């Protein structure tokens, strides 16, 4: 019965299908095997779209500038020169002074046409999977961020993990800075960004963070700024200040104190050092393990204010005075000074944000999440509403220890 059913099916659909005898089937199988082997030999020439290491230009950093001609972009890709990296850490052995990177620049109308344009000049195609930093020049940022942001976020090769920075001068100059401890400037910047949490004075922003902030509508995206400075005839780079964006354009900056304030509010300040001026001289506190919580609260009259609670844990790191800072009343005094310093940073940042009318703290998002109904009314003219939002700051500071000394090292202190 089954066979019959199969047969019916085959008769209907496979009229020339196969009722081979056993011998012929064996032959057919052998022929297929030979054919398959022949076909498989072809695949020994390896993959179709393979890209070997020696045909890739591995990009570690990308800089975007305004081009010389109108409506053009200049892209600088920092490419690793693998042969120069292998030559020991001092680089003396394998060709002294040979740089381990090449900066390739090209100018064209758009990011992708630049990337394809690079193939006019180089034997290898740029490969962006390992790109660590994107640097936009502030000139470009003040015009428009959209082009570069979309192209890099959309491209499958690059990753949203990469850090985003704004250069004070030209982005291509940043990528030429002298990286004393590293071989490649882009690498230096990438590693530097990882260490910024111990000073809490730089807003570390990845392509993802920036895209999320841009998408939010109410929040003003921020990005750290980087600049070139000269020392001893060499050009070096340093991180300083924070760029503030609105409507896809850079509209202003936050200085060091304001950046600290921003990080306190957005719970990004984890650790840092505070130098306090006391009656007797300078005392330095180290803060570690701090956190903050921002919460919108409804006032009696229906308006909304923000409540910020900052918790900081610290120790006394250095005491330049003759006074014993382990005495409890002095500890209280230091805590008071510390609170004041944190509060001053936050006030400073708030003032600047209000001046720019840019919601760098994400007040709008917090209100949207907690009071969606009120937010519906506010969001239309958020730009005018934002400067009116009050911020109450509550700072709690704990001083845990005085380090490995209790009393200061002073002349004659041991007697």
């Amino acid at each position: 019965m089954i066979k019959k059913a199969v047969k019916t099916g085959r008769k209907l659909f496979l009229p020339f299908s196969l009722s081979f005898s056993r011998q012929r089937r064996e032959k057919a199988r052998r022929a297929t095997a030979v054919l398959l082997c022949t076909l498989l030999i072809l695949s020994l020439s390896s993959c179709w779209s393979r890209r070997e290491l020696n045909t890739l230009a591995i990009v570690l950093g990308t800089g975007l500038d305004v081009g010389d001609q109108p409506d053009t972009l200049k892209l600088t890709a920092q490419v690793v020169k693998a042969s120069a990296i292998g030559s020991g850490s001092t680089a003396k052995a394998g060709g002294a002074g040979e740089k381990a990177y090449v900066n390739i620049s090209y100018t064209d109308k758009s990011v992708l046409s630049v990337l394809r344009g690079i193939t006019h000049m180089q034997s290898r195609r740029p490969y962006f999977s390992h790109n660590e930093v994107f640097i936009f020049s502030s000139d470009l940022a003040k015009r428009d961020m959209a082009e570069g942001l979309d192209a890099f976020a959309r491209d499958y090769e690059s990753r949203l993990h990469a850090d985003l920075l704004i250069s004070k001068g030209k982005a291509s100059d940043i990528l030429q800075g002298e990286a004393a401890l590293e071989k490649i400037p882009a690498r230096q910047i990438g590693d530097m960004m990882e260490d910024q949490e111990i000073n809490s004075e730089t807003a570390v922003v990845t392509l993802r963070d920036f895209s999320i902030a841009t998408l939010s509508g109410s929040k003003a995206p921020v990005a750290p700024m980087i600049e070139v400075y000269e020392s001893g005839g060499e050009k070096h780079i340093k991180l300083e200040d924070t760029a503030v964006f609105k409507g896809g354009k850079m509209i202003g900056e936050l200085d060091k104190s304001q950046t600290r304030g921003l990080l306190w509010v957005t719970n990004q300040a984890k650790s840092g050092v505070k130098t306090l001026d006391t009656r007797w001289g300078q005392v330095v506190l180290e803060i570690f393990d701090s956190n903050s919580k921002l919460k919108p609260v409804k006032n009696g009259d229906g308006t909304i204010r923000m409540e910020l609670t900052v918790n900081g844990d610290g120790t006394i790191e250095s005491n330049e005075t003759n006074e014993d800072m382990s005495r409890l009343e002095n500890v209280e005094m230091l805590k008071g000074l510390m609170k004041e310093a944190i509060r001053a940073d936050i006030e400073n940042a708030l003032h600047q944000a209000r001046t720019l009318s840019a919601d760098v703290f994400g007040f709008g998002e917090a209100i949207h999440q907690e009071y969606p109904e009120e937010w519906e009314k506010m969001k239309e003219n958020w730009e005018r509403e934002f400067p009116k939002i009050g911020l109450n700051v509550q700072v709690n500071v704990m001083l845990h220890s005085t380090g490995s000394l209790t009393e200061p090292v002073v002349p004659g202190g041991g007697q």
Partner: protein
Amino acid sequence: MTLEKENISSKELAFAVFCFIHGTVLRSGFIISVTRNDSWAMAFTGLLFMLPIVAIYAGLLRKFPGKSLVEIDDIIFGPILGKVISALYLFFFASLAALNTRDLGNFVAVHMMPETPIAAAIAVFLLGCVYTLRKGIENLINLSTLLFIISAGALALNAILVLKEVQPEFLKPLFRLEPQKYVQATVSVTAVPMGEVLAFTMLTPMLGKNGKAAKPLLLGLVLSSVSMAIVLMRDIVTLGPLVSIVSLPAFESIRYVSLGDILTRLESVYGVILIILFLLKVSILLYAFVLGLTQMLSGKRRPLSNPGHEGQASGTAQSLNSKNHPPLILISAALVFFYSLFVFESMMENKNWGATTAPFFSLTFEFLLPAVSLLVACLRKLGRAREVKA
């Protein structure tokens, strides 16, 4: 052809249902663009909406135990109309197979091998499905326990590893969108990943006469709605507002995993799991199509699966070997191959179809036709009740 025998257990069937749905959950992001940060809840409302549909399938399968959907149609609507209805189901299975094949092809062509023509990827993939079916569908279903462990493990691993990057406040504000959006997303969840379990009504005869089909189907659906909620929630808290603009949220959020700069780039795990799950899914759809076609063509001469009637037939088919598969697999795979090549011109068209037409298209076959079948069966007093009387 007596293909259906008591050689899968209901537990394996439940896991197969899970794997079947989980592939689509990982692949598609269109629900998120509708209900944004509340999408995770749609996994549960979708399940609720799915319950009556499962009840209809269960009703049909209980009335005609040991029969597949196509055979049931023949009994309910008679040989002519029954064939027409079965042909509609077959069209649906073939379409789903083609759409899913295309989905996978797009993933491979866009994310993994941009210079390889999509036809090459699809051809290799379908050959894999053909091979699987030639080795016997029951083996694939038996494997589903393993696939369940692998995919659930990968899901848990990815969710845990990405915890460092998440911002739970992205889930807020809860449920602030217009109500019709939730209805739209619920219908989408029901129709697109969940309702496709209709294909399993072609497999349930393999459970044997005493096997209850409703329980494993339901268990599988509950498992997959939980996993869907986890996937969607993970994507939302990792990507925030980005989630509704990226083309593949699950892929993008897994790209975020970075444990001490060592355990990174886990999207390869995602790729492997996606391909395995789609292999299972398309194999099952293809099997449903091929088996339905065989049963339709063989018509009344087809031996009943009831061993009491045709003891000899089931005896012959007991010899479990590679011949235990329906004919026409290769031809059907070729059909799906060409169908999937011309089904959509672009991913944009695919997305548009998924957001607008797909739920209605799917619900016609998943809900309307079975409901009408059950109604007619009840009115004509067909099924088990009459058998008992006779």
